[in-house]
């Protein structure tokens, strides 16, 4: 199998990763102890895009909600749609990051880092120091993503997946079908 074929064939892992993340956030309160020892608290933002056919964005539906529960998206998941991308937030050491994570590439779209000194109004901050500070904040977001990816793929490759994780994940997805009549908008 050539590299491009392999990338295409394994795109489902990104969609499963996003589903697993949401499931974990719901079932553990969003706290993740990342490899390396960092603790983060994550939550789903106000936008989730779901796709019927992973190869076609035409068949996508975007769920928005001020309500963090995004129940319409949960309902769509229970109906068999897959997560194409999701807005995620996390907090670490009292600071907040937000980004949109796309399943196919795991690029960080619209990454919002904690504000730097200049954004806080400290105009006298050294430009170089600001730049380095911002670079580190961006890298920390990628490090968190890598840590979560490691947790997921280790779980997915373990025997625990079939015995524990998969049944719990399937039950969580199915529970979304009972959530349609509650708030949450689709547009």
């Amino acid at each position, binding site marked *: *199998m050539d590299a491009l074929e*392999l*990338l295409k064939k*394994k*795109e*489902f*892992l*990104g969609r*499963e*990763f996003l*589903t697993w993340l949401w499931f974990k956030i719901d079932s553990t309160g969003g706290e993740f102890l990342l490899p390396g020892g960092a603790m983060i608290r994550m939550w789903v933002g106000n936008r989730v895009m779901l796709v019927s056919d992973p190869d076609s964005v035409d068949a996508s539906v975007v769920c928005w909600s001020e309500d963090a529960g995004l129940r319409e998206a949960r309902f769509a*998941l*229970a*109906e*068999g749609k897959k997560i194409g991308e999701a807005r995620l937030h996390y907090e670490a050491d009292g600071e907040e990051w937000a980004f949109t994570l*796309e*399943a*196919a*590439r*795991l*690029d*960080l*779209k*619209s*990454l*919002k880092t904690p*504000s*730097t000194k*200049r*954004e806080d109004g400290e105009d006298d901050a050294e*430009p*170089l120091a*600001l*730049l*380095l500070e*911002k*670079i580190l904040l*961006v*890298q920390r977001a*990628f490090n968190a993503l*890598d840590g979560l*990816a*490691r947790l*997921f*793929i*280790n779980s*997915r*490759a373990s025997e625990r997946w079939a015995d524990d994780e*998969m049944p719990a*994940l*399937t039950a969580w*997805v*199915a529970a979304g079908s009972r959530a349609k009549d509650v708030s949450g908008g689709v547009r």
Partner: protein
Amino acid sequence: MGILSSSSGYTRFRLSGEMPDAYEALFHLQIGRNAFDHSEGSTDKERIRGWVDPARPFDDSLDMDSVFVGDYIVLSMRVDKRTVPPRLLKHHAMLEEARARAESGRERLSRRERLELKELVKGRLLLRALPAINTYDMVWDIHKETVYFSSTAEKICDEFSGLFEETFGIPLVRRYTYDIFAEMSGGNSSALERMAPAQLI
């Protein structure tokens, strides 16, 4: 959109080649060669690109002290794009054809002559067009051999990796989902290759 914006998209690349020895002196030279050419402020090219200082994209000079920052190389790719409105091009091309017919005393021009005239007119109009200017930042973590680029658009990422390879002689590989999972699984790629989609409903 860039590293100092409050919000920006980022793509990660990894290097697919070896760093040369004594890279700093070599890269100084190569960055200079591929710096944005400000003398092309008036040009008949539709698209020009090159490296600029992220904080000063309109400056002629590129200060290497702000490029080599600790363990990082920080640069912006500036892309200037000029366009000629199609109706304006058509109008001016027709005027030029009429002039050429009058000068030659012929009633008709060949297809090739008309195409050449159109290109000539387009070049003249491009010289008068103001460019749409965009800059995209890159941060290269030398030790991690990772490059962060402040756009997720496919076409811009391709243009960036082309400029990067032309400049540094090292190809870049865009990080995809599978590639990230392969690395995070500690090289357990055979387990990854066997994985089939989970049936969640």
